[in-house]
């Protein structure tokens, strides 16, 4: 695992419900590490991994888009937002 930093995960809508909380901090090197850590932490909540699999992500406000999560190195204090599929209108 590349060197780790403390990052914040901010969950929205269905992700917040599945996580049972709006925000949490954890240690990770890449975005993939952070999501794996979150899955491990919420392993007892069945729908968490399932919802996470459908989410898109922002890091400090910028969309991650289709980039490979394992290739995205996180900065100290990065803010990762977890967005379920949009359902407006």
């Amino acid at each position, binding site marked *: 695992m590349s060197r780790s930093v403390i990052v914040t995960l901010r969950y*929205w*809508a*269905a*992700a917040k*419900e599945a996580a049972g909380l709006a925000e949490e901090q954890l240690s990770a090197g890449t975005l993939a590490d952070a999501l794996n850590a979150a899955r491990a932490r919420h392993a007892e909540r069945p729908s968490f991994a399932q*919802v996470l699999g*459908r989410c898109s992500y*922002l890091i400090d*406000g910028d969309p991650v888009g289709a980039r490979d999560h394992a290739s995205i190195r996180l900065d100290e204090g990065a803010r990762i*937002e977890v*967005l*379920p*599929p*949009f*359902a*407006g*209108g």
Partner: protein
Amino acid sequence: MTDISVEQAVRLLAIRDTPLSVDEVLAAIADPRIGGTCVFVGTVRDHDAGRGVNELGYDAHPNALKELRRVAEGVVAAHPGSVVAAVHRVGDLSVGEIAVVVGAAAPHRAEAFAACRQLIDDLKAEVPLWKHQRFADGSAEWVGAE
């Protein structure tokens, strides 16, 4: 149709937790050069996929209004001469209440329909909003997250 800048063509954008009005959108896009105005109104239905719905809750991400502006500017760029407006509701809505009103006006109806349709389609696809459905049987779910 004299050229309207993209900014001027986006007449009204809002995300708010108070009841919406179609008239507000119509007034925002009224223009003497306009011949056709198309408005789409999304309301809370009393059922979804066969299940009775009691109430709907909408959440918005802080970026929502910024994204809605990007979408609206994309629509007027794609439909020169059109003017647009879009208002979306957040908070708890009962059956029949208005969740969204989008409107597009243009010299002729073809552009008005096309711009209005793109506005609601792109809003649904690109603006970070979420819908929480509360069913008559007491269960609830976030739409699209299953």
